[in-house]
């Protein structure tokens, strides 16, 4: 009994001691916190901190090196606070940062948000007044797109890379050989693709399979539908909910259903890696590198990762398969938002210098291409610095990539209609997820439904925008004069 009281007293005592310890701890922290603040204030007197935030984690090491060089060149900047997050965390964080008036000096346009809305909201400032004259001339033609990088022909953001496809195909040459297939003759049509996948799966006998995907992420399927569908004449791209060729949602047409049939067939053959359902894209990429799948549908950013981490992986690359009738269109790639400068920043001049050095300097853009991370939007850099598979991939996708019409640059009020547009559920990607993973086969009526609802949603968005005074109509989404095998020219 006595022991218990003793124990109780001891624990109470220790609690009290802890409490005091904590108090004093708190105070010391407060002090150090204040000291830090003081230090920062001092910093403000003889040094400046630039804050940069994005989700470019794969190039972080290069950025850090770049920051060292930048601070050497501009000694008034004594610290660059660089934060990389995942894309979703970035969106959450930046929203709250803006609301508290405390956003980083330089950050990219969050994915899924329209630049004109954000500019209207006072997020970014125009870049032309703060950068040196002629700075924008160093970029490749067509780098800046209305509604994505420009508002009313004023540039607000600079993309980190050129437009490129995200649903190209990589294949494992070793597994091709094991299945008795010629690694130099990748499949060209849907039928061949399915056949190859089946043969690889058979040869694998449970060790490896035809195709692997990051099946938990529906956006991976979105890219496949959009890009493979567009090669088949669907006219889909990220800047319009409907086909830019017809002005109608193409999901029920052959251009898209062919893709669904192909994946249903692959699933029926058992050619899809059984772990696809529970994988994210980076996980699938690693498992492909481990030699567990013949094909993976991915983009350029894998090349650097594989070359660095899996030098033993012998992979080939190919453009997506097409129907027996051949290619009916091109991948219509849309630019990315990229970096802008915070409207309320204290150091617009230095933020501008940062961008000038990042894009115009000798170091960063070359390194990013040389190390096989991104295709630089600065003219001439890819041609100079790209090597090996990275260059091969670039040349390969340029055969099937075009700059299609951008509805927003033809009529800026399109932005207002897209701002009213509400996505339809289930999306094509979600239906595809069901088809490829869980045996959903009744997809035709669903796609029919999807097309109808998408058309209705766009119509509704246009009406709502018109009610608010926007000068926009259905005709702004149709480009009958566009030949989808070529760049769009009015």
């Amino acid at each position, binding site marked *: 009994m006595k022991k218990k009281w003793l124990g109780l007293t001891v624990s109470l005592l220790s609690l009290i001691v802890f409490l005091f310890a904590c108090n004093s701890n708190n105070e010391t922290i407060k002090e150090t916190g204040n000291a830090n603040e003081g230090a920062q204030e001092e910093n403000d007197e003889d040094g400046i901190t630039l804050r940069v935030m994005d989700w470019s984690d794969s190039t972080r090491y290069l950025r850090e090196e770049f920051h060292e060089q930048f601070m050497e060149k501009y000694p008034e900047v004594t610290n660059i606070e660089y934060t990389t997050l995942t894309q979703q965390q970035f969106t959450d964080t930046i929203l709250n940062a803006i609301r508290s008036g405390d956003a980083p000096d330089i950050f990219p346009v969050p994915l*899924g*948000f329209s630049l004109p809305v954000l500019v*209207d909201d006072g997020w970014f400032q125009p870049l032309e007044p703060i950068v040196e004259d002629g700075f924008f001339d160093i970029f490749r033609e067509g780098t800046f797109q209305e509604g994505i990088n420009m508002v009313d022909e004023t540039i607000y953001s600079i993309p980190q890379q050129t437009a490129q496809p995200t649903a190209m195909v990589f294949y494992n040459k070793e597994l091709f050989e094991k299945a008795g297939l010629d690694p130099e003759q990748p499949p060209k049509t849907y039928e061949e693709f399915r056949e190859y996948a089946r043969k690889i799966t058979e040869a694998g006998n449970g060790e490896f399979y035809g195709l692997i995907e990051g099946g938990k992420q529906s956006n991976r399927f979105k890219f496949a539908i959009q890009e493979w569908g567009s090669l088949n004449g669907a006219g889909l791209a990220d800047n319009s909910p409907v086909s830019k060729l017809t002005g109608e949602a193409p999901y029920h047409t052959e251009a898209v259903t062919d893709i669904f049939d192909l994946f249903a067939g692959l699933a029926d053959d058992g050619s899809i890696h*059984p772990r696809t359902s529970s994988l994210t894209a980076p996980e699938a990429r690693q498992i492909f590198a481990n030699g567990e799948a013949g094909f993976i549908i991915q983009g350029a950013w894998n090349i650097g990762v594989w070359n660095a981490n899996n030098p033993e992986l012998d992979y080939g690359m190919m453009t997506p398969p097409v129907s027996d009738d051949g290619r009916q269109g091109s991948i219509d790639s849309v630019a990315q938002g990229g970096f802008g400068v915070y409207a309320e920043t204290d150091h617009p001049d230095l933020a501008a210098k940062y961008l000038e050095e990042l894009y115009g300097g000798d170091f960063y853009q070359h390194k990013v291409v040389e190390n096989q991370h991104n295709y630089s939007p600065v003219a001439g850099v890819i041609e100079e610095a790209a090597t090996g598979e990275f260059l091969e991939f670039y040349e390969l996708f340029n055969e099937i990539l075009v700059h299609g019409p951008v509805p927003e640059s033809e009529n800026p009020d399109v932005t207002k209609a897209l701002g009213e547009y509400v996505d339809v559920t289930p999306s094509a990607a979600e239906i595809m997820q069901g088809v490829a993973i*869980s045996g959903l086969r009744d997809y035709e009526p669903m796609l029919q439904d999807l097309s109808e609802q998408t058309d209705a949603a766009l119509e509704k968005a246009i009406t709502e925008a018109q009610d608010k005074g926007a000068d926009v109509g259905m005709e702004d989404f149709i480009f009958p004069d566009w030949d989808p095998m070529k760049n769009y020219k009015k």
Partner: protein
Amino acid sequence: MANANITAGKQQTSSLRKKRNRYIMFWCWLFVLPNIILFTLFQAWPIVTSWYYAMSDWSGLSSQIEFVGLANFQELINDKYFWNAYKNVFIFTFGSVPFQLMLGLLFAVILNNPKLKFASIYRTLIFLPVITSASIIGIVMGFIWSTDGGVNYLLMQLGILDVPIDFLGSMKWAMPTVIMVSVWMSTGINMIFWLAGLQGIPKELYEAAYIDGAGHFKTFFSITLPLLIPIGAVILLFNVAFSLRVFDLIKTLTDGGPFFATDVVSTYIYSAAFAGEIGQPRMGYGSAAGVFFGFTIIFLMLIIQYLRSKAKANRYV
């Protein structure tokens, strides 16, 4: 005289009692105040703002908030995928809560035995899933439940299965699998709560029962269980509330798939509020889903409460 004395005495005691009551009331309010303040600022206030968002057309990023009244709710109740999520979250809750409660209690009772050696080690091990990182659980479970994973291997060795099942990829099996993982994850924390509850039972009661010759099961059902009911009700409530709001687990295991088979209300809200494709994300609509869901649950609870009190009243009549 005597009468007057008594009334005076009564008055005195009643005024004493009043004083005492006022004293207690004062302290009670003082005691609940800190928590009420924390609650109001950090929970009630966000709920109020989510009401406001729910009645607006708002992407979550821009400062353009357009008031649309009940339009979001109208759209919501016409969306069969919302009702699918609504149904799923109840399947999830009813599937997982009873098991995690019972398993937690079982472990608690076994490991509460002071004479069982290594009990503290067992308790720690059972608790480990609670603190294992969610992203790790997602990857490990992806392995374990895949067609060439441990579960299928075991079932095929035992001759229960001829062909492996893609547990997380099949529309039929994904939900039961998620439920099993949830039970596995939550048993540890339930065990802790039950253990805490078991400590409130005076040991003398057990001793008396054993002297009367009662066995394990009889003691458990006649002493332990009845005395655990008050705290058990709290644990149950917590489990239900927690399961109805499940998010992390589903997000890491299936992300609501395959084809909405495990889509629950919180993942539904997430994809509406944060993930736009061509359209903007819809924070307003997502908030409406949250508000609608929360209030229908509360409404359901009130009905149950009303029926219960009515049943009780009838019994006494």
